[in-house]
């Protein structure tokens, strides 16, 4: 692995908050798996265990991470990773050691995108473990398993695009609170577009496809046509965001 990338990866791995967050996520998943079966809980949380339990449980729990929480967690980590480094005058340190700006930003991008993908896969792993502890082999229904794994992979793509967007924002604003604020605005706009009937906006908005896959087709197979449109749109957004980061980093006056 390229040394700068390894250095950034080590820096991310030293963040204790990540381990605390996933320990909490495991606890949450465990409680949901074991405690939602009671009639009082079903009524209180407005869910039907017949639908969300067993083979569908990992898919049910997916929305807890890849929705608002996962995006907020990512933005907090990335502002720590980029904006705080910039404020501490650590961002340009590799440049003093002969690295180019583009190599530095690409290293950051590799690490951040891998991190966001690993986090999604880790949540899948945690949810399958807790579901297995609660329902045993009942969770391994072939059709549901393939469908759920595919949805997790699609979520990983979506989270990577979001990560690229956050990196572009961090580099553009160079300010933690502004980045956090714009991400919250994004979350609100995303909800608005998904629930509105503005077809043109929905067609070009990458978040819409993710909402479609996660909520409209929840516990159902996603039609191939939706995938064929959604994935390329996400990839295009990803390329645009990474290009913005690359262009901006060349112009930054450290």
């Amino acid at each position, binding site marked *: 692995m390229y040394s700068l990338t390894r250095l950034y990866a080590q820096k991310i791995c030293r963040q204790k908050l990540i381990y605390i967050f996933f320990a909490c996520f495991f606890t949450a998943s465990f409680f949901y798996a074991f405690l939602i079966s009671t009639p009082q809980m079903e009524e209180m949380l407005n869910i039907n265990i017949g639908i969300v339990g067993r083979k569908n449980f990992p898919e049910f729990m997916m929305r807890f991470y890849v929705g608002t929480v996962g995006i907020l*967690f990512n933005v907090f980590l990335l502002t720590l990773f980029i904006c705080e480094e910039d404020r501490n005058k650590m961002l340009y340190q590799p440049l003093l050691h002969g690295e180019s700006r583009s190599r530095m930003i690409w290293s950051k991008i590799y690490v951040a995108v891998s991190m966001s993908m690993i986090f999604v896969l880790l949540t899948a792993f945690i949810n399958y473990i807790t579901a297995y502890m609660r329902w045993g082999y009942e969770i391994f229904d072939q059709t549901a398993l393939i469908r759920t794994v595919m949805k997790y992979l699609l979520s990983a793509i979506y989270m990577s695009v979001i990560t690229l967007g956050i990196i572009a924002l961090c580099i553009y604003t160079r300010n933690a609170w502004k980045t956090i604020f714009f991400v919250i605005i994004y979350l609100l706009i995303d909800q608005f577009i998904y629930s509105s009937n503005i077809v043109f906006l929905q067609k070009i908005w990458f978040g819409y496809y993710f909402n479609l896959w996660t909520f409209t087709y929840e516990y159902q197979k996603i039609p191939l046509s939706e995938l064929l449109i959604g994935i390329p749109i996400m990839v295009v957004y990803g390329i645009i965001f990474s290009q913005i980061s690359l262009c901006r980093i060349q112009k930054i006056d450290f």
Partner: protein
Amino acid sequence: MIIRLLNIQFARLKRQKILYLFFIVMAVIIISNALQCAGSSEDNGMGYYAGGRFPTMCMQSYIDIIGTLFLSFISAVLICGERASGMFRQPLLNGISRKQLLLAKTVSIFTVALICFLFVIIFSIGTGFLLWENHIFDHAQEYFLQMLLLGFPQTTLVLFLVFLSLYISNISSMMCASLIILLVNNLFSQFFGGYISFIDFMYYLYAFSGYNGLELTSKIIVLGITVNIVTGVILVYGISKRTNNMTM
């Protein structure tokens, strides 16, 4: 001296554009909630809150995540951000004591919390009045009581956030820690409300706002106020200890 210090803190807060953006975002959320409620039937989740219960719904959505994260952010900016930039110790050079400085910061964060909360209530009643006219006052007694009771956990929350900010060195870590605490608290409130109601002040953010259909009984009210006062006293003690020991 303390009044002058408070004026400086308020002047600094007034310059924070995010405060005004927060009001805009909250207004958009309230209007969008109102339109969704108006378009839903009575047996639907949203339809239940149409009319007299609409301010309760807005209070719940404010307390759930947005309001708490926003207050955490303000605490982070005023304490962690200033400590990181070396501005925190500037007033100390002018003869102000550490306690006075922390008191001024706590009072200013508390004022922001109060203004934001009142904004949510007043704006939701105003929006509700436009949509449902006098029906917005059908459950006025209920939501005014909730509003008054929520003052206790909100005050303790401000103290808690100040306490947390004194231990965390930057804005992002503070926000991340707040998010994790919020999630854990939400989880425990849902599953173990009966047990944690004896120790967790944040449980009452949900209990006093009728979250998930929680019923407001006199036992809960008395217990909630007691837990919040006790936690508040412990936090004040913790803040003063930390203030004396910390490196500025």
